[in-house]
């Protein structure tokens, strides 16, 4: 296999990992943000947490694998992005730490203050993580200052520009919608009513912000001048799916509502990776300094070894993770249910 083929393959694989992460952890973040607002009593909060309890950690591994795969396949991308977005990633790590520990610890003590503290840490951690991921991806599309040595020359505030913040807020709103749809599928009774009503409201914000993101993408990014791959109708289908989800939410067709928002998330990310290709980090200092899959990658040997590993293990992981969702497919609020967390 040629080096170029492997570089493209790994670009696709990393895109798949991010898509998987956004789809899966997207609703986990949404559920986390909604926790203190939708769950008014302790049992309700526990039911909400239990809806993702068995699977959130596995979902987060998609992020770790995306990070590890980026290091292995495109070390220059990994080095530039992780050192460049230093403080943003530090905040993301703190958010993930506080959120992760809270799932495990909140129900291990009956003290109401203890529980309320961890519940809010879940909500704030989820919000911060969603916001920062959105900011980071918007900045990747927009481009950041990178010098001839592949070194990021901006700071945290460089990332907090208007387009970055629009990306962040859009991500938060879509994840909230995704999480509400997921909860509507997993809960019952009053809580199900409440999440459905919330989905109807946040839907409007998600649509408005997604439209703003689309329009500003033409203003802030260089896709006119330098379009990687033409995504064709993919972004339009993605946006249309988001529109349609409102109809399903209104009609209480929870499964279809969930699927249509999922389509929106997947297609938006696919669009992102297509317009980036073959660049992985765009330099606003000089387009020639941009990192591409060709100048940022590992050797053909490393990539082929990693390809063999990935081709064997990715399907296995998909099978057992999928099987987990199948096993825990029942709604949480049945009579016999016990709440673990």
């Amino acid at each position, binding site marked *: 296999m040629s080096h170029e083929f492997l570089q493209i393959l790994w670009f696709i694989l990393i895109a798949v990992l991010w898509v998987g992460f956004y789809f899966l952890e997207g609703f986990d973040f949404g559920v986390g943000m909604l926790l203190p607002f939708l769950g008014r009593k302790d049992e309700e909060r526990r039911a909400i947490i239990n809806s993702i309890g068995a699977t959130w950690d596995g979902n987060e591994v998609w992020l770790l694998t995306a990070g590890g795969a980026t*290091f292995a396949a495109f070390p220059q991308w990994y080095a530039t992005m992780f050192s460049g977005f*230093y403080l943003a990633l530090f905040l993301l790590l703190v958010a993930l730490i506080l959120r992760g520990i809270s799932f495990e610890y909140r129900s291990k003590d009956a003290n109401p203050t203890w529980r309320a503290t961890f519940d809010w840490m879940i909500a704030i951690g989820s919000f911060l993580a969603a916001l920062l991921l959105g900011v980071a991806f918007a900045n990747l599309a927009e481009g950041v200052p990178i010098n001839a040595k592949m070194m990021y020359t901006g700071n945290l505030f460089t990332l907090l520009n208007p387009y970055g913040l629009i990306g962040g807020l859009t991500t938060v709103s879509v994840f909230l919608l995704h999480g509400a749809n997921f909860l509507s599928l997993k809960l019952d009774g009053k809580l199900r009513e409440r999440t459905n009503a919330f989905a109807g409201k946040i839907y409007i914000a998600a649509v408005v912000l997604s439209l703003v993101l689309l329009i500003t993408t033409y203003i802030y990014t260089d896709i006119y001048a330098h379009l990687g791959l033409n995504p064709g109708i993919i972004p339009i289908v993605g946006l249309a799916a988001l529109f349609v989800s409102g109809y399903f939410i209104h009609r209480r067709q929870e499964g279809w509502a969930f699927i249509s928002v999922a389509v929106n998330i997947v297609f938006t990310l696919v669009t992102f990776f297509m317009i980036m290709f073959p660049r992985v980090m765009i330099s606003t200092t000089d387009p020639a300094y941009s990192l591409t899959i060709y100048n940022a990658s590992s050797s053909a040997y490393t990539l082929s070894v990693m390809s063999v590993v990935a081709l064997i293990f990715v399907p296995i992981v998909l099978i057992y993770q999928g099987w987990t969702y199948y096993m825990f497919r029942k709604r949480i609020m049945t009579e016999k249910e016990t709440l673990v967390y």
Partner: protein
Amino acid sequence: MDPLILSRWQFALTTVYHFLFVPLTLGLGWFVAFMQTRYYQTRDKTFQQMAKFWGKLFLINFAIGVVTGIVQEFQFGMNWSEYSRFVGDIFGAPLAVEALLAFFMESTFLGIWIFGEGKVPEKVHLAAIWLAAIGSNLSALWILLANGWMQHPVGYVIDPTTGRPMLNDFFALVTNMKGWLFFGHTITAGLVTASFLILGVSAYHIVRNKNVDFFKRSFQMGAVVGLVAILLVILDGDSQGKYVYETQPMKMASIEALWDTEQPASFSILTIGDLSGKKEVWSLRVPYVTSLLACNNPGCQVQGVNDIQAQYQQQYGLGDYVPLMVFTYWGFRLMIAAGFLMAILSILFLLAMRRDIAKARWMKWVPWVIVLPYIANICGWLVTEMGRQPWIVQGLLKVQDAVSPNLTTVDLLISLIGYVVVYGALAVADFYLMKKYAVLGPDAAMHESVDAAPTVIGAQD
């Protein structure tokens, strides 16, 4: 303050902290899987209670290992971008394999284990804890192969244009003896850590005459596994010593505070150094022992720090190639002392079990043994990591050339202080819960949550 120093402190603190939780996860997982298997085979309720009680402590500890592990994977790129660029062709691969092979496995199956009881078939529930235990130990293997490569680089050629190592033999990386010796040492140390936690907590309850049968059986299990595991730790450690002699002579010399090349080499029982930690003032030595430890031959030659320093200056250019000996020397001795103390204690515990240990007066002191493996674990890593300074990759890249050049002192102060605050708070919460559930005993662990029976909720509100 120098960003390099701050990055080093941050890496050291976050890594040592992470490894406070990892060994217990590695070892206790096997115990819980074994206990649950025994329940499955015998239907003995005590085994079920054991799996639940020790499983609870396993989970409280596991959670911090997981969340602090994310930092580990990200900080290579965040703080050590030049390192990441330099070794990316090699080091990223085991890390990615670790995530794909091990992280998915442990997190997914642990989720099934926590939530699956009563919902999935009992066999599946049992398989889940085994797979979670295997997954976490597999993750140790891959990260230690990665670390083994940094200590003893294999399977690469230097790219003539970039000067960077390029992987040319993945099999050599996977079979690197350094990594496998680390792995053997680490998983057995994990079993020791778990055994001594079990011994300590069990003693606490036995002294108070609570759930005596439950805790006597746990105590016995801890003593047996603890003894076997600590002996394996020592054996593996001995092999490691010989391998360090071959591959990292400077580390060997600095562990032994051996200044000048000796044949045969003596073993220092006590060496007092000056404040720089790199010069000797006075020492008490036993002849032949270091030679014996290094190459199984009391007469062989062991190189001293001064000679290796001179040789490295010729080979790699001017510079200080001597590690901070005060850490390697004392860290090693503290580790060994804790290790042998644990071996002796395990034997004594086993002998004592032949009589009624509940009546033994010394039992009230046994909970303190819990700290011994932690001392050994931390000292071991300090020795192995500080012993290869100034190298980040032995012979190929120095730590000072590995740090991210774009980070400022302010960036690093924010993150360092942030980690200290967050990790400190986590430690308090973890210690509180561990102690609470350890003291509450098996009855509380049988309930999934502390607030008694889980509330059934439906549409009634």
